[in-house]
Every structure is written in C-alpha cells, then in structure tokens.
C-alpha cells in the first residue's frame, strides 16, 4: 500500500532533493502538513472532499478549514484528515481505468446516481 502525495502546490513545488548535501532533521510539527477537508451540506448527508488546508496540526487544520470551506456554502459539519493518513494502492489509476472499459459498462453501479431519490421516496412513504 502507499499514501498519496499532497495536492497542495506549496508542498509539491518545494522539490527538496532526495539526497541533500547535509542531513536535515525535521521534528514533528516543525513543518506544516496538508489536511484534506470533507464537507457535509446537510445533516445526515455524505461528507464530500472539497480541498485541502495547510496547518501545523489537526486542531489548527479544522480551524482553518472552517473559514476556508465552511463560510461560503451551507455547512452542517466538516472533517479534516491528514493527507498522508489517506491510504490508496500502488497501481490506483491503472486498476480502475481497465475495469471500467467502455464495453463493460454493465458493471457500473449506476444505481448510486438515484440513491438520493430512492432515500427521499422511502422517507415520503414512511411519513
């Protein structure tokens, strides 16, 4: 398994050489990390990834995310997750581009697209 590199240009453009001339030791908290922000628009709804913030720790990441992503759209809840804590697979892209080849469209779980409608219908039936 591998973790994903930050999408934040302030991290990726740093281009720190793999073998620097002198050894540099970074202690925890000395350099900011990125945190991915997940936004919930209504209570009970799904949290959706909306972007990232640069912060020294999780508490500050949440505080920054609140103004970055919670102010300009209706928000009921926010989650922040350290980018390097998100796990994905080595051949991530490869795995999925082949699996969803055009002739195998029947595999696509299109039902997810109507999930909201179904849930709404069920609720209407109950009430």
């Amino acid at each position, binding site marked *: 398994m591998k973790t994903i590199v930050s999408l934040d240009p302030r991290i990726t453009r740093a281009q720190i050489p793999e073998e620097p001339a002198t050894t540099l030791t970074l202690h925890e908290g000395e350099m*900011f990390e990125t945190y991915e922000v997940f936004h919930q628009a209504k209570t009970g709804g799904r949290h959706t990834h909306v972007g990232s*913030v*640069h*912060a*020294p*720790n999780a*508490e*500050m990441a949440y*505080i*920054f995310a*609140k*103004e*970055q992503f919670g*102010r300009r759209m209706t928000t009921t809840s926010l989650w922040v997750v350290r980018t390097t804590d998100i796990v994905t697979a080595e051949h991530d892209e490869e795995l999925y581009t082949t699996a969803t080849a055009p002739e195998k469209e029947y595999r696509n779980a299109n039902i997810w697209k109507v999930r909201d409608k179904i849930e709404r219908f069920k609720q209407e039936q109950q009430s």
Partner: protein
Amino acid sequence: MNRDTLSALKDLLLKMADDCLILGHRNSEWVGIGPMLEEDIAFASIAQDKLGHALALYTLLHQYCGEPDPDTLAFMRPATKFKCCHLVELPTQEYDVALVRHFLFDTADRIRFEMLTASTFEPLAKLAQKVKGEIVYHTMHASAFIRQLPHGTEEARCRIQTALTMLYPFALGIFEPSEYEEILQRHGIFQGERVLEQRWNQEILSVLKQAGLEIDNSARPVYGGRKGYHTDHLEPLLQEMSEVFAQDPMAEW
C-alpha cells in the same frame, strides 16, 4: 421604556457597536498580509463578522433609540462621541499583538453576548442568539493560537507573553463601569460589567494556564474610552475609515 432606561440601553449598545467597528477595522488591516494564506482568510472573515455585529447593533440604536442610521453613526461622529475601549484602538505592528488582543477581546465579547441572550430587551436577546455561532468560532480560533504558540519556540513564548503583559491593562478597560450599571441590572437588560469581568477572568486564566502564560495581578485598568476619552490612535483611524463616505455622504451604494 422611560428616559433613564433608554439612555442606559443606548450607552450599552453604543459601546458594544463601537468596540466591534473599531476592532473590525483594525483587524481588517491584516487582510492580504497575514502570516499564512489560511490564517489571512480566517482573520479577515473574523474582522468582517465584527463589522457585521457593529452594523446589527447600530441598526438597533437606529430602530429603538432614535439614533441616526448606521452609516451616519459609524462614519460621521467625532472621536469624542465614540464609546469604544482603548484596547480596540491600538495599532498592531506585529501579529502577536493582534492575536493576543483578539483573544482578550473576543473572549469578553462572547461572554457578553451569552449573557445578553437572557436580556429583557428582546431585540438584543435575539441578536445575541443569532451571532452566537460566529463568536464561538472567534474564541475557538483565538484560544487555539494562544494555547499552542507559546509551546513553539522560546521567541514565540516571549512574544506572546510580552504582548499579553502590554495589553492586559487595556483589556481590563473593556469593563469600565458606566453610570447605568444599576438601571441595566434592575430592568434585566444586562447583568453588568462586574459580572462579565469575573467570568472573563476565569475563562482567560484557564486558557493562559494551559499556555504557560502569566498576567500581572497588580495591573491597573485603562479607563476612559467609555466616557469618550481616547488614545491618539482613534482620530487617524476614523479619518481613514470614513475617507470615502465623507466625500459624498448622500451617495447611494
């Protein structure tokens, strides 16, 4: 509402509004030059909220106390008619001072609005209820910085402690008692500056303890702002703030 009660209410609303307006303006001076992108945006949003609170309070003064409209109140009064405390007037050359002031003022502001949710003056109680969420965020933001920064480098601790020592007497000036304390309490409009100061003190001490910071218990409060006496910093601030408005007060925006 009789005349004394109305004067008392007017005094309370005006000092709150002026504090929010002047601090909002001061904090907006950091827009675009904050220490990092995320913090720049957060601090600017907080400044904008403060201006919003000032507008809401000036609107109450206009609707219920016979005062002029909010723009006239904000932009056309001389410094001597302002009731803000000295704490909010001070210019901030360094971000540590801006942060410590934000912490000291907003903690008091949050408790004040919390107390006012029970006010017998209903429009104010409603407003207090409405702005609660915003102010909770302001103190959450401020306390996180104050708790964490002093545990960084020695320079960071030193800067925050120095700013705190410098600002603490000014912060005590927030609670300068007015001649209306008794009337406000008797009519259930506001429990008074004394009660507010005690709660504030407890709350800031608990954060400062976690931060390893100290306050000078012998500090003497800087009073005067609530009576219309101000520092030399207020006049230039007002001139700059009303520069555009004063060119054509009748202009429609």
